[in-house]
């Protein structure tokens, strides 16, 4: 690939500049602006989370990137090629939201179909299909029709087709929505394996725990406007991120002392002591507690704070919209 950058900065895989998209709901109806100048960039080798509530414009942006819809204005490029072209698609994989495939085909047939579309050589085709079936753990159902597949199986076959031609970049639209916890873990593992193999992953999601767990960088989109772009840790403002700790065998005095030292409230419920500490102080708190002879029953990252931050961003967006007098758009 003669595309690799000569500079030290990681090369930009996806570049979006001032993307605007108006939809005309019907003949004679006033067109509706769904994207208000969206800009962001995805760097090589990272897992990029494109985060926002439902209807924020995530899928619309992704459709522009996939060349399915044309932006009203602005530019989008992937691997240095304008998204209107078809050439770069050899190097990208795409999993749409709630993917739906020809129900009359079997899992193996649909993968063969996509492999042939990507020009996978026929000598390699069978092996490639088997590899992908193994990756998404669908070997057992490979000769059953997709109409018999469950939601999770469809999602996994969707990932398999996205990766059938070993692309450099994977675009995944809500890859974990609607899946049970085991299914989500399966998908997470596959994404992390892609990163380990040096691939870039672009992921649309509204589920924050997924973002926190695997994304390197995020862009937050609210009502068609980007509210934040950068490393996930920075966005989360680590000093505000807390964990809930449950302890046992901690004397009342020690707990008061710890509470003062870490400036937090300690609640005692019978034998158990519950405390919330900032993530930055987590290690020293645990050391101090252990030093005082306490048993640590559980440490749980507190998600409430993340949701809170997220909601704040959304509210800010609403305020901004009210100021601009424009309605945001739902994802069509």
């Amino acid at each position, binding site marked *: 690939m003669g595309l690799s950058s000569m500079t030290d900065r990681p090369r930009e895989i996806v570049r979006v500049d001032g993307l605007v998209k108006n939809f005309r709901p019907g003949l004679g109806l006033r067109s509706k602006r769904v994207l208000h100048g969206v800009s962001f960039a995805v760097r090589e080798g990272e897992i990029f989370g494109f985060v926002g509530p439902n209807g924020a414009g995530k899928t619309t942006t992704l459709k522009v990137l996939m060349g*399915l819809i*044309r932006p009203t204005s602005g530019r989008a490029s992937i691997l240095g090629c304008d998204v209107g072209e078809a050439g770069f698609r*050899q190097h990208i994989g795409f999993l749409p939201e709630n*993917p*739906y495939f020809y129900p009359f085909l079997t899992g193996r047939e649909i993968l063969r179909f996509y492999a*042939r*579309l990507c020009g996978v050589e026929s000598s390699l085709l069978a092996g490639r299909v088997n590899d992908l079936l193994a990756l998404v753990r669908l070997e057992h159902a490979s000769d059953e029709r997709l109409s018999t597949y469950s939601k999770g199986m469809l999602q996994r076959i969707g990932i398999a087709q996205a990766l059938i031609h070993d692309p450099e970049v994977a675009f995944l639209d809500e890859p974990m929505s609607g899946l049970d916890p085991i299914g989500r873990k399966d998908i997470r593992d596959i994404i992390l394996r892609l990163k380990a193999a040096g691939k870039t992953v672009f992921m649309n999601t509204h589920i924050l725990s997924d973002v926190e767990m695997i994304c390197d960088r995020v862009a937050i989109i609210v009502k068609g406007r980007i509210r934040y772009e950068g490393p996930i840790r920075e966005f989360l403002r680590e000093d505000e991120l807390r964990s809930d700790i449950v302890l046992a065998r901690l004397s009342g005095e020690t707990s008061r002392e710890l509470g003062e030292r870490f400036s937090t409230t300690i609640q005692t419920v019978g034998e158990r002591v519950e405390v919330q500490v900032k993530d930055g102080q987590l290690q020293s708190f645990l050391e101090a507690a252990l030093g005082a002879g306490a048993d640590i029953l559980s440490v749980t990252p507190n998600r409430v704070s993340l949701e809170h931050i997220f909601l704040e961003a959304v509210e800010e967006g609403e305020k901004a919209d009210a100021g601009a007098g424009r309605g945001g758009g739902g994802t*069509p």
Partner: protein
Amino acid sequence: MTGSLHRIWPIATNTVREAVRHRLLYTLLFFAVTMIGFAVLIASLSYVEGERIIQDIGLASIRLFSVGIAIFVGIGLIHGEVDRRTIYTILAKPVTRAEFLLGKFFGLLLTVWLQLLLMGLAFVLVSLSVGAPLDWGYAAALFLVGIELMVIVAVATLFSSFSTPMLSAFFTLGIYALGHLSRNLYFLGQEAEVDSVRRAATLLYRVLPDLETFNVSIQAVHGLPIPASEVAWAVLYGLAYTTALLSLAIYIFHRRDLE
């Protein structure tokens, strides 16, 4: 170009596979073959020219049902892919929209040609069983039905590329009807006193397909000569018209947002 073919072909074969796993096709095929067989009963009502009536009904059934299949499979051809979002994953592959559209077109065309072949076989069997004449004229008639189907499939593809199945069916049926009328309308128009009416009739005739070009079933059944040159011109006309329709379809489909 060969690269395009490598992408068009899987889409086409997949379309055929989808169609042949569809029950509607068998239902229509069943009715068509039943009609061809039923013709023997109907023809027995006439004390003369029974074989001719059998073949009239047989060829009409073939034309009616194959056009029916072409329209009712064709109208949802593109729309179904967009509606079910199966097109998203396909267009994310190195497949241009033109290649996708052509793949769907050829897939449907192969399907309707396949069932035309089956109906033709039923026609031959019935003709043989009643001792009706069979010669190359019938082959030419069925071949031209195939060319007409190509044009109809292209019309359905065009409408399906931007419209809902309901509207596509309406439009395609309309074009089918007008296509069989266009020659008569042209002749009627030429008799008009007013100059602008004559010009409008001519324009309409140029724009609409003249589907009667592909209808030589009467000539076949009556053993009238069907010159090879006439067949060749019909094929050329069909190909040119189909190319025009597909070009327009690709142009529209390229500009379309796939929401």
